[in-house]
């Protein structure tokens, strides 16, 4: 936890460093025992030593490169093994972190051999705390920092040497108690069912792996992610966690502690403002960690210079990605959309440049089975809200693919979400044919493979490329994985089908958009 004292200390030391002081030898002498006995670090103790401004910035940038890449992997829906592969290379380059066993046993008694390891661990330790300062300031940054740091930790934990990992685990206090053999035996049926669920293990092997397994009992909310996926057996408020799933327990603890400390750090942040050396660096750092977010590309707000009207939506829908086409078809068919459908589609339409007045016309006409009174009562507020005209007055951005994929999976009777992810394969095939006119066997098979590999954005890009193959021909650099936002899909599609018309007066459009928000 980076408390007030720690920050003060850090500030003082950084200031000293800025005035040319080097590391004070006494600070090493002061420390009791080895500073970093384990390769893994739960980052509970803030750094105390001095660093130079250059190191301060360089270490942070190196770590940021790693975290940035992790976020990109998440965004691409990469699996843990894929992320591990990416991280392995990246970490070797920017932040190597070797285990104690990397030193031959015969030389371990020589403390000098540990200097290299200690330096790696120090960089890991310090860069983590520097980035805490940069990313504690907003909810969103905190959330993303915890998420990416947790994955980095997971990578290191799972690649750690088993003996050293066990030592590290012992040093944490996790509030769990072992399950006795007799209790394990009395719950054998339930525990085994959960352990082998979905693994299609032959009976004999299942029995063996169950017998080898040891269990810990923790209060269920310590492992809520395992509860969420029904990965553990629950009884009277306790979760029975097999040793093989310990990782999840440790991860949950890691993010929980990090979340708590970040909030504390945030509370002390204002005190940093006096320091004119640190603040610019920290601000610069947090800017380097921005998520791909769609800012409606101004020129398209007006297409060929004229504002989009409600009546044009049907025609324009040929440029929509499947998710929006599906919502459009659903609203035309059902004369209604449920809440998240309205949100996803409404923000998309806002993003392509539908003004609030036209949006109200569009939705009023679309919801034709409702009376004016019902519409005004139930939906008008909601639509105005998405335009920031009601309520908190926030200018909501169109949802990105990531938000659509992750945030609210559609329930019964709901049409939002990503069809590539949320449709069954059969229904997806039908929808691609009926809504997008994609029946080419090669494309359909390709999409199926993408979907199976959970590369939903790849599937969507594949369809895009197929539908625009004529226009894309001859254009170099039309690589994969380029579209990451439904509005980007629309913009690209419209631009390709209307070459030369794209552009318009960007400046004017910008103003226009602002007007919409300010009205």
């Amino acid at each position, binding site marked *: 936890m980076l408390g007030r004292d720690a920050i003060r200390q850090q500030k003082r030391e950084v200031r000293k460093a800025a005035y040319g002081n080097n590391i004070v030898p006494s600070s090493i002498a002061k420390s009791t025992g080895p500073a970093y006995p384990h390769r893994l670090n739960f980052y509970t103790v803030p750094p105390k030593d001095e660093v130079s401004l250059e190191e301060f910035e360089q270490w942070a940038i190196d770590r940021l490169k790693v975290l940035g890449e992790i976020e990109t992997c998440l965004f691409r829906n990469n699996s843990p093994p894929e992320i591990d592969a990416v991280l392995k290379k990246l970490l070797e380059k920017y932040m190597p972190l070797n285990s104690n066993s990397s030193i031959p046993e015969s030389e371990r008694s020589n403390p000098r051999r540990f200097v290299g390891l200690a330096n790696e661990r120090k960089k890991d330790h310090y860069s983590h705390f520097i980035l805490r300062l940069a990313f504690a300031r907003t909810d969103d940054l905190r959330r993303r920092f915890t998420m990416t740091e947790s994955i980095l930790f997971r990578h290191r934990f799972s690649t750690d040497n088993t003996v050293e990992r066990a030592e590290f685990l012992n040093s944490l206090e996790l509030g769990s108690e072992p399950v006795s053999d007799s209790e394990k035996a009395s719950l054998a049926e*339930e525990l*085994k*069912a*959960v352990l*082998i*669920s*979905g693994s299609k293990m032959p009976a004999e092997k299942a029995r063996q792996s169950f017998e080898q397994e040891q269990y810990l009992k923790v209060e*269920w*909310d310590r492992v*809520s*992610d395992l*509860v*969420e*996926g*029904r990965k553990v*057996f*629950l*009884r*009277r*408020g*306790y979760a029975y966690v097999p040793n093989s799933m310990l990782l999840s327990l440790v991860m949950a603890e890691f993010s929980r502690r990090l979340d708590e400390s970040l909030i504390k750090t945030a509370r002390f942040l204002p005190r940093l403002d006096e320091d004119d050396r640190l603040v610019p660096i920290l601000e610069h750092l947090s800017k380097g960690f921005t998520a791909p977010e769609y800012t409606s590309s101004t020129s398209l707000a007006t297409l060929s210079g004229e504002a989009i009207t409600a009546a044009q939506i049907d025609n324009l829908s040929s440029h929509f990605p499947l998710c929006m086409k*599906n919502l459009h078809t659903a609203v035309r068919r059902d004369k209604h959309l449920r*809440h*998240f459908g309205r*949100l996803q589609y409404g923000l998309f339409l806002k993003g392509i440049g539908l003004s609030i007045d036209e949006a109200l016309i569009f939705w009023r006409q679309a919801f034709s089975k409702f009376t004016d009174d019902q519409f005004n*009562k139930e939906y008008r*507020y*909601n639509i105005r*809200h*998405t335009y920031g005209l*009601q*309520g*908190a*007055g*926030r200018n*909501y951005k169109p949802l990105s693919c990531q938000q659509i994929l992750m*945030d*609210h*999976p*559609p*329930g*019964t*009777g*709901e*049409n*939002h*979400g990503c*069809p590539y992810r*949320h*449709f*069954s394969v*059969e*229904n997806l095939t039908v*929808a691609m044919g009926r809504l997008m006119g994609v029946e080419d066997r090669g494309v359909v098979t390709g999409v199926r493979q993408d979907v199976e590999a959970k590369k939903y954005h790849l599937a969507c890009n594949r369809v895009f490329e197929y539908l625009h193959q004529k226009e894309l021909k001859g254009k170099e650099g039309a690589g994969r994985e380029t579209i990451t936002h439904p509005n980007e899909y629309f913009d690209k599609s419209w631009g390709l089908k209307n070459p030369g018309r794209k552009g318009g007066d960007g400046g004017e459009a910008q103003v226009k958009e602002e007007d919409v928000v300010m009205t």
Partner: protein
Amino acid sequence: MAPHKTTLDDDGDDAMQDVDSMQVDSVGADEKTAVKDELEHMFDDDLDDEPMVDASNIYKNNSGKANTTAISDILSTNPSDPQIMLQFYSRLFPWRQLYRWLNHSDLPSTDFAHREFAFTLHNEAYLRYQSYPTFETLRRDVLKLNPSRFEIGPVYSARPRDRKQVQKGSFKPIEKELVFDIDLTDYDEIRTCCSKTKICIKCWQFVTMAIKVVDVALRDDFGFQHIMWVYSGRRGAHAWVCDKKARKLDDGKRRAITAYFEVVKGGSQSGKKVNLDRPLHPHIRRSHDILKDDFRQNILENQDPFRTEKQAERLLQLLPDRQLNEALREKWDSTIERPSSEKWKDIDALAGSGASKTIIPKVLLEHKQDIILEYTYPRLDAEVSKHLNHLLKSPFVVHPGTGKVCVPIDISKLDEFDPDDVPTVTQLLKEIDQWKNPVKKEEDGDNSISRVSDIDKTSLKPYHDLFSRFVQKLLNAEKSVNKKTGEIKTEGMDF
């Protein structure tokens, strides 16, 4: 981050901005009034000029004397008639128990004082962030505003009324009961007897089945004890899990529990909606064991969901084997509208007779289990449960559409519960009118009459008693928890 109809996090703040201007707690100079208003509430122990008395005075004046059949005379039969509502909230609503329930103690505490209440007025205006030091003040406001319904939100870090006075960012929801919402709208694609807002005892069974499964899991799996089920007034039920630990859960943990109960997955286009790994998780296994008999009775017999050709085709889509499907289709083509229960039996009969060479009995069995769950497993409105700051209609409120009171459901007699039997507000008021002291002993005279409370004269009494018992148990548990922590503290001192 997104505007949602009832989550109303920070957006909701201003969802009522139209109303705010007429409310005392808007901005600027009005804030002083708000404080003053608050103070008035706080020291207002004077019950003499309560609207309750006003209301019955009106009625007394109209009728000439007390306790005659006059109430129903002056009231229309429309249950959402403001006059009827007013009578209900002044004479029958269990204010004291509601207070004890939310306050977790008989002594005033922030559990109640920092709790958000939200009112929907008869003109559809929605008033959020109301809070009250005592139940008398809450009651007085309800009688003054006469809302068509009111909802209960979380306990905040400060009094919700003062939210604009406290430092920005420090006004936060702290705790709220873990809640679940079962609504028959989520069953529309599988219920055949009614649709939309209609409901009958047949489709009520979906709710009964859901309650059974969720209740046992909350107790046996999660270890919760204080679970109250409440009829939502029309076509669903709410659960309020009131254990201290449940109240303190953050959004992430609420989401985890919600996901634990998510078995029927997918939107309108996702095909087979239950696809579970085998062996089944013990929770699913137990749920399936509970539900499989209900499936036969409530689904196959009563809902008869596979009767027509189109419906039967849906059943075939959920089965794994093409050859078996061919055989079934052929059989069903010759017998028009064969009942679902027969069709269900046909599956095993034909599979056993060797109609398909490719069928794997284990796979068929698993698919049949999945189908049973798809038609019976609880479909919860997840958004309600996931968020600490979601508001939920208070128990004992009158549903403005049906006039029915949102009564607690006795879980030990769950199978007997029929929404048709739930008293409506007009019925209850009539019962007060028609009530006669059963023991007419002359020596007791008028005194005995005045001692019987209005609730005791009506069919609301058993529900009220159920609620009181629940609250008492909760308070006892709360006390022993406090005592325990106290003991630990003193032990620590001895060392």
